[in-house]
């Protein structure tokens, strides 16, 4: 197993956020994590790369416990693109992507030019070569997001964690971005975990879906088996229609909220 999460529990102070999460995933697949606000999606990602230390349970990558790895060792295996694309200082795009090489600085058997090659590849894969010398604060939200993903790819990770990657992007850029992530995951054999609110995009691009509810995994499985109207109604109180489009794949149509649903 590339990633194995076992009986993971996490609480902020005394408030439980995650309770007995079990999840395994392999390189090359895209796993979408959906659920209502505050159900612990982002917390789960943070536990995976050890930004947060779980109260119980374990996270292992290739058989190694992340809690016993140094920040640098974790960064070689796991890259994390957070929600914020805020930048305090106007670093150039090239400088920003190069930062992703930090954890590889003293790799064994490292060769002259490895860094430039990895940075070039990451920038090429995300289509940002033309911005190399631009200060990052002058870019649009979508361009900035791609820079952050390029920096993550420069880490040459096995696992890529994306927290709301399509936030604040207009609809065509949302599709472009996920198309790109899909392609990269397959080409480079990377496991991608995506936390998202976008049910339409998640069902289109993810191989498997995790639905979270009440601190727990409510449903987990192949997208086509999980993204069914019953589950959508159970968790989000939303009426949906699901169909298969011959050109694009799985299509979830959001119709409206059930009037009898409980207020939350």
């Amino acid at each position, binding site marked *: 197993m590339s990633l194995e999460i076992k009986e993971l529990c996490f609480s902020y102070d005394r408030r439980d956020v995650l309770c007995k999460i079990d999840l395994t995933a392999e390189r090359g697949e895209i796993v979408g994590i959906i659920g209502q606000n505050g159900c612990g999606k982002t917390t789960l990602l943070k536990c995976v790369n050890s*930004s947060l230390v779980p109260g119980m349970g374990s996270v292992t990558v290739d058989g190694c416990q992340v809690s016993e790895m140094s*920040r640098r060792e974790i960064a070689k295996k796991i890259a994390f693109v957070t929600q*914020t694309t805020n930048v*305090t200082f106007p670093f150039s795009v*090239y*400088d920003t992507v190069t930062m992703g090489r930090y954890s590889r600085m003293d790799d064994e058997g490292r060769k002259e030019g490895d860094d430039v090659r990895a940075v070039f590849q990451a920038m090429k894969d995300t289509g940002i070569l033309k911005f190399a*010398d631009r200060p990052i*604060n002058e870019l649009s939200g979508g361009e900035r997001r791609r820079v952050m993903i390029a920096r993550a790819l420069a880490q040459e990770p096995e696992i890529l964690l994306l927290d709301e990657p399509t936030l604040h992007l207009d609809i065509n850029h949302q599709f472009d971005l996920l198309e790109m992530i899909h392609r990269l995951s397959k080409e480079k054999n990377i496991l991608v975990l995506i936390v998202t609110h976008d049910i339409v995009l998640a069902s289109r691009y993810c191989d498997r879906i995790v639905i979270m509810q009440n601190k727990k995994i409510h449903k987990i499985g192949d997208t086509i088996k999980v993204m069914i109207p019953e589950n959508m109604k159970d968790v989000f109180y939303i009426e949906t229609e699901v169909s298969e489009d011959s050109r694009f794949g799985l299509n979830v149509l959001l119709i409206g909220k059930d009037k009898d649903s409980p207020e939350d």
Partner: protein
Amino acid sequence: MIELKTVEDLENYQRAVSRRSKSIVAAAGLGLILTFLVTLMIGNYSLSITDILSILSGMSGDSVGSYIIIDVRVPRLLCCIAVGAALSASGLVMQSLFKNPMASPSVLGISSGAAFGAALALAFGIGGFMGRYMVPGMAFIFCFLTMGAVYMLARTKYGVVSTTLLLAGVAIGAFFSGMLSLLQYVVNENVLSGIVYWTMGSFNNCGWQSFQLAIIPISAGLLIMLFSIKELNLIAAGEEQAANIGVNIKKLRILMILATSLAVGGSVAISGVIGFVGLIVPHIFRMLVGPNHALLIPLCVFGGGIFMIAMDTIAKSAFAMALPVGVLTSLIGAPFFIYVMRTRKNEIWD
């Protein structure tokens, strides 16, 4: 806009950037040497550049001139360079560490802490176990304690909040100023004048001995900063992101607090509190060359030296009487502080 098609293009781009950086740093270094030579000429005893060069090469028969250059002006200027470099680089590191444009040793009360430590040593001989390093040693210890306290007070679960940081700095600074006043009230007159000298900030008493005292802690602090350039860039890009990329944030913070304490402690020990240098110099260079520490740290070292020499020379010779340099930097620094607060805040810091 550049067009990159191949890895070689990117390599060339990177080489061009690093060539440019090297020439900027070299220019600043050259500027520092020139400033040093030119300001050697300035003072009550007038000397030409040829006099100076012959004195420096040991060929001059002018014993008064030799004394003034070798034993008065050279050590004083070297102290200016060391202190200017230390304060500027420390200000830069603090701004990156706290992600706050207002952070600098004087604004965050750290210089006041160091001055109180130095005053304790002067007044009561506290810290006597450090021998001749008693005054810089006490300045360093208090620097470290103050910076740690300010940082702890400003920290919350969600990181360091700017407003809390400034408030903590102001509060701690005020506390140590108060303690310093108390100390001045109780000590005798001889000690008092020494302490007043510390609080105003001046290079008047700086000779070779001061330089020898300060150069070790200052060099150590600057070296630590130079070896942490990559980490500083990453932490400036965001703490959470830096941790995700592989930086051990806790270790870096402690290392940087240690480095700035060494540098500021060493400076305060010989020149007292010279305010705003750590605020002005990093801002000027960041506006000119961008946020990369690979450029900013060497520039702050050289540029800080130039700035300090210029300020000291103006303070001692431009007015009817010689002013303490700390008075001059505060007079210039306070308006600059307001300028930064009004204009830069919304552009790059948020």
